């Protein structure tokens, strides 16, 4: 039994559950309600936290202020049961991926974000954060199942206050998991490429766009574009069809070839009407730099002629896809070197 509680901890956990159930509490609350010292309250919470039986959040205003919420006894029992057949030594060696494989289909999930995208593009190394889509009702089980001394689980912002081997971000999803999951080569479930493309495209950051482009370059022939639950239908449902059409067109334009079958682009083109006020991508960093640049150019009297030339040159970087922007009825601020670099790095051009 590797996820068990010693008797003293079990007694404290039960008393706390009786009092707070799923309500939040502080270390001081624990000391007061269990009538123990602050030192013992901290020790109790630290033990529970490391076992994943309590979830800790920090105040946004002051990171030192911590709030706790207990994982329910049902979820704790479920996870103790899951691990009951594993020997202590084996448990210590379990990687996060081993845990996901161990789970198999017992609780539905899909690894998403960069970690999943890497399985499809093998391009930019993913960050240390694992983003996992889960059903909201399974949240407690996931926290208890994944947390150990190497792994920290988060439901919102991940604060790097303590270095961990694995950072997990749980994302609540109402989607039907059978539709979106795909078993990776390693044996755990990742989000299907079609869903993942839309997920990353909707994030509209430069990083996520790079991953979308790399996934398409490496898998364009294997992607389901037209059928039910294909990329085009998902993009329509997610209201991102115009952006998708633009990006695919830009990819073919930069590669000077048909990485994406032209029929796909014309199908999308027929679905998109008129102009929109969409700026693509809505990456905060790019938007900020672009706005700053426009402000400088607007106030030309404040800058030298040389600077005007320089800023206009930079502006061209952001507006490099003016023809495609007109064609797709949006305003692109995606610098051309973003797609070009992926193409070069992947040996396409």
């Amino acid at each position, binding site marked *: 039994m590797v996820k068990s509680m010693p008797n003293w901890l079990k007694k404290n956990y039960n008393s706390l559950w009786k009092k707070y159930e799923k309500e939040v509490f502080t270390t001081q609350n624990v000391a007061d309600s269990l009538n123990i010292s602050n030192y013992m309250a901290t020790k109790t919470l630290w033990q529970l936290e490391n076992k994943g039986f309590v979830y800790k959040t920090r105040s946004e205003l002051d990171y030192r202020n911590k709030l706790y919420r207990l994982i329910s006894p049902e979820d704790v029992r479920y996870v103790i049961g899951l691990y009951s057949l594993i020997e202590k030594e084996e448990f210590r060696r379990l990687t996060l991926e081993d845990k996901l494989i161990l789970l198999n289909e017992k609780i539905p999930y899909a690894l998403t974000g960069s970690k999943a995208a890497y399985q499809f593009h093998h391009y930019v190394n993913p*960050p240390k*954060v694992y983003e996992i889509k889960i059903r909201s009702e399974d949240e407690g089980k996931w926290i208890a199942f994944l947390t150990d001394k190497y792994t920290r689980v988060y439901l919102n912002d*991940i604060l790097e206050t303590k270095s961990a081997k694995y950072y997990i971000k749980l994302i609540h999803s109402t989607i039907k998991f059978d539709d979106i999951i795909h078993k990776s*080569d390693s044996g755990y479930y990742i989000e299907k490429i079609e869903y993942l493309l839309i997920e990353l495209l909707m994030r509209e950051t430069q990083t*996520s766009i790079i991953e979308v482009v790399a996934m398409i370059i490496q898998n364009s022939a294997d992607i389901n574009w037209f059928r039910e639950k294909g990329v085009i239908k998902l993009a329509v449902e997610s209201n991102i069809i115009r952006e998708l059409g633009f990006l695919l067109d830009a990819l073919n334009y930069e590669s000077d070839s048909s990485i994406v079958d032209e029929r796909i682009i014309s199908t999308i083109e027929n679905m998109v009407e008129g102009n929109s006020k969409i700026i693509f991508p809505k990456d905060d960093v790019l938007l900020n730099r672009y706005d700053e640049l426009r402000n400088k150019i607007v106030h030309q009297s404040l800058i030298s002629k040389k600077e005007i030339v320089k800023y206009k040159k930079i502006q061209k*970087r952001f507006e490099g896809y003016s023809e495609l922007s007109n064609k797709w009825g949006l305003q692109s601020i995606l*610098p051309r070197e973003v797609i070009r670099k992926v193409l070069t790095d992947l040996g396409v051009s």
Partner: protein
Amino acid sequence: MSSENSIVEKTNLLDLEEINKEAEKYEIDLILIGGNSVRAYTESRSWRFTKDLDFITTSTKLGLLYDVLNNLGYNTMKTDYGLKGSKKINEKYSIELHISVDKVIDWSTGKTYILPEDIFELSKSVPIKASFEENQELEVVAKSAPIEDVVIMKLMTARPRDHFDSVAIILDSFDKLDISRFKRICEKNELIKTIKERIESLIVDNRKGIIAKLWKQNTGLTFIATRQNDLRKKLRVLLEIL
């Protein structure tokens, strides 16, 4: 069982080791730049490199280098900037290799970075660790460009991704930075104004929370206030020296 991902990484690292050994054997000046050199100066949470290998070299032994790469199975060809090589790992994936000769040209700005005379002499042998669990025992040693050159090459571009890399290096390895060499190289490359403007804009970005967004995009982690303050102080030091 090794996954395809770990095989790609393993091949990449073993090739890097082999190239490094061969370069030493034939006394070819060859050092890493790009993502792998960022890796040498940052914590693993900031590693978002590609599997490609980016090097710099001098024109003196280019012919020899060409032969070394061909012997290691790379399809090599000459380019505007130097050499380009490609080696298939399997049907789907290959390792791309780029070697800039005597200078590095930045695509986003068209600016050129002339390699300082002491760059090879000051290059550092650094351990490059694998990032995949299955390769955790694997660590190869390769020569990386000195930190000052890596930071300048990252600051001179217009790509936010490079700015993230420079921020990560400044935060993690500021103590290793030789500030007077940093200034000297900027002067020699006529980059003082460019780098100064970039640092000023990073200070503003840091204040406005833009760096925090860039940090989150690239690491998935929140840029905490203490780190924000630390960055502000370090950027100020760089700005003052310029």
